[in-house]
């Protein structure tokens, strides 16, 4: 297997992009990544696009072809594949791209992720998101993503793993970081009180515990590590990836205060990378809800169970702390255009490892890790990256 590097990144503004279509955001991120990598279109061998539900959000399927066409790649007949794994669509597209380059099948691969969610009503958007849970035994019975995560949070608090305030503190920290990211949907700091007092969504989770509905796209360009210096002075190396599945429905799990798939995928990635949790300088995790971040930090091995909440509360996960988490603002503050989210995490790691993160730069960052989740922990994708 060949070693793989990221040689270019692009990301759009995340938010309510009412004056941009799906194809516009997709192309914008893709072109930015291609320019960043100093590529010409004829050098691109393949494209992988992460997207959860363009069929229901904008009535458009077959977006592999759409993006190939509108990016000008159709004229080169470049193969383009759409990848779907709910919230993990983007990170899984990235992993497919890495595998394509590592295997020697392709040399230069563009990985994109995009979602356009604000063309439908808020209610419709929730129904679409619910389709990532078990439609037959969860969604159809009235469970929503927020209510499933609320059950996790209630159990987590009941077990004494964290307090309600510690869970809410995750959102405060995400907004603190989002305020430093000019591409973030929310660039304003908030207080703990704001989270606790905002409208109830599903007890104990309030509006500020939930990631928003967003439009946006992100893209990266991959190539074999040994060719990376032809394109950039600052390639970032993919040290290892992991992927694991778990039951689709949350109720099938013996323990809902941990996502087994995150643990397995993390172990896989650590083994390949030859590193452990103690070697990681910064992390991007899938905080679709605040509670998810605490589960992630424990399942990835950064804190023993019941310690993540305290760590967030004490500021250990802030920029400047022992382990900065979601320096981009995370899904909560940067925004969560589902298909783009996993790729945007990679963009953040690369930006940090290149030392280009400006005000939110983690000083001396050498190794970063991303965790992405589809459903309630049904798919987990882990990526570990390092300075090449």
């Amino acid at each position, binding site marked *: 297997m060949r070693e793989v590097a990221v040689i270019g990144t692009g990301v759009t503004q995340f938010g*309510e992009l*009412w*004056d941009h279509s799906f194809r516009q955001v997709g192309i914008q991120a893709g072109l930015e990544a291609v320019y960043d990598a100093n590529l010409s279109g004829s050098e691109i061998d393949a494209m992988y696009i992460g997207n959860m539900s363009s069929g229901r959000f904008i009535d458009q399927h077959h977006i592999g072809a759409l993006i190939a066409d509108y990016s000008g790649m159709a004229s080169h007949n470049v193969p383009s594949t759409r990848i779907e794994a709910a919230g993990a669509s983007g990170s899984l597209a990235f992993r497919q791209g890495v595998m394509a380059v590592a295997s020697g099948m392709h040399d230069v691969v563009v990985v994109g992720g995009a979602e356009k969610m604000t063309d439908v009503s*808020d209610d419709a958007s929730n129904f679409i998101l619910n389709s990532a849970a078990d439609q037959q035994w969860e969604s159809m019975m009235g469970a929503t993503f927020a209510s499933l995560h609320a059950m996790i949070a209630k159990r987590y608090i009941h077990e004494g793993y964290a307090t309600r305030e510690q869970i809410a503190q995750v959102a405060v920290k995400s907004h603190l970081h989002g305020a430093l990211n000019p591409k973030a949907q929310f660039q304003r700091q908030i207080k703990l009180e704001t989270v606790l*007092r905002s*409208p*109830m969504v599903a007890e104990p989770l309030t509006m500020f515990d939930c990631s928003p509905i967003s439009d946006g796209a992100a893209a990266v360009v991959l190539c074999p590590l040994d060719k990376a210096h032809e394109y950039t002075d600052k390639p970032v190396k993919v040290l290892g990836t992991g992927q694991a599945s778990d039951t689709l429905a949350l109720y099938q799990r013996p323990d809902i205060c941990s996502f087994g798939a995150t643990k397995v995928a993390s172990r896989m990635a650590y083994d390949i990378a030859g590193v452990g949790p103690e070697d990681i300088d910064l992390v991007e995790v899938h905080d679709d809800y605040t509670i998810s971040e605490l589960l992630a930090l424990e399942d990835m091995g950064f804190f023993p169970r019941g310690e993540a909440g305290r760590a967030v509360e004490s500021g250990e996960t802030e920029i400047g702390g022992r382990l900065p988490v979601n320096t981009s603002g995370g899904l909560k503050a940067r925004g969560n255009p589902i298909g783009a989210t996993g790729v945007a995490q990679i963009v953040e790691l690369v930006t940090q490892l290149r030392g280009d993160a400006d005000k939110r730069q983690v000083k001396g960052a050498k190794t970063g890790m991303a965790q992405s989740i589809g459903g309630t922990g049904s798919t987990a994708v882990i990526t570990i990256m390092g300075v090449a």
Partner: protein
Amino acid sequence: MDVGIVSYGAYVPRYRITPMEIGRVWGQDGKAMSKGLYINSKSVPSPDEDVVTISAQAARGMMRRVQVDPADIGALYVGSESHPYAVKPTGTIVAEAIEASPELCVADLEFACKAGTAGMQMVMGMVGSGMIRYGVAIGADTSQGAPGDALEYSASAGGAAFLIGREDIIARFNGTLSYTTDTPDFWRREGQPYPSHGGRFTGEPAYFKHVGEAARRMMERMGTSPGDYNHIVLHQPNGKFPQRMASMLGFSDEQVSRGLLTPMVGNTYSGAVPLGLAAVLDVAKPGDRILAVAYGSGAGSDAFDITVTDAIKGFDRGAAPTIDAMMENTRELDYATYAKYRGKILMKG
């Protein structure tokens, strides 16, 4: 010859409900809603009030303040998005109520919250061309907000009527213009009891874009700047939007405050700018200059540059209730009574 306002009258129902009371019923933080929207209470029409009675009441007040023969009124337009009938004009009833029938042109207008000011522009054209001597434009609503929806905190009732002519005008129209695009931020289809809205989409690309553009273009056309005006009256779906818009345009809180009624009465929709303008005229002095900008979803804005004349000194304001009087004579409702008054309780048969 100058075209202007000869008289005006206003009406706001006396009943009020607070965001705290609405929030109490729906399990929401009414206090936070009140602060977020800058609405302390909203008006509620009683069961025997609708756009016809509100318009008639406002028009009667308007007529009481001047000695104009109603037979000289050649047109009457009522702008509203809550006309009681889908087919059958509000305007004919109002015209009869002020004895302006039968020789006049009447039509009901709809352009979300700006149909009242659209009526003013139409009457201005007819009066200015000499087609009619006087015309009446009314903006009034008993607006709808679905139970539990964010709109329920603001949707209220009220209206104002303006007699427009060329003689004895108390305020002169220096100019008017409209800024209109197809922007679907808020709508209600035929037969639907409550409107739908695009949430935050009703803000930046809708309200702020259209009101801001109309105001800027009006000032550009008139060669004026914010400092030239004593008052600015903006459409006020909540208390915050007009304050923010005014500040973005370079106006001070003092210039906004007199024409800002939404904190006390909620969003009176088609009645909003007409009522705000009435509140300003209640205290205006000769030479006062007013910039008024209405907004209707869908979307468009009508801007008016107005100067108060010397005739305001002899104008008999006291012949009809002022806006201030209507703000004082109020009665607060609980949600149950409000629900009954607004027909939100499903009755037998």
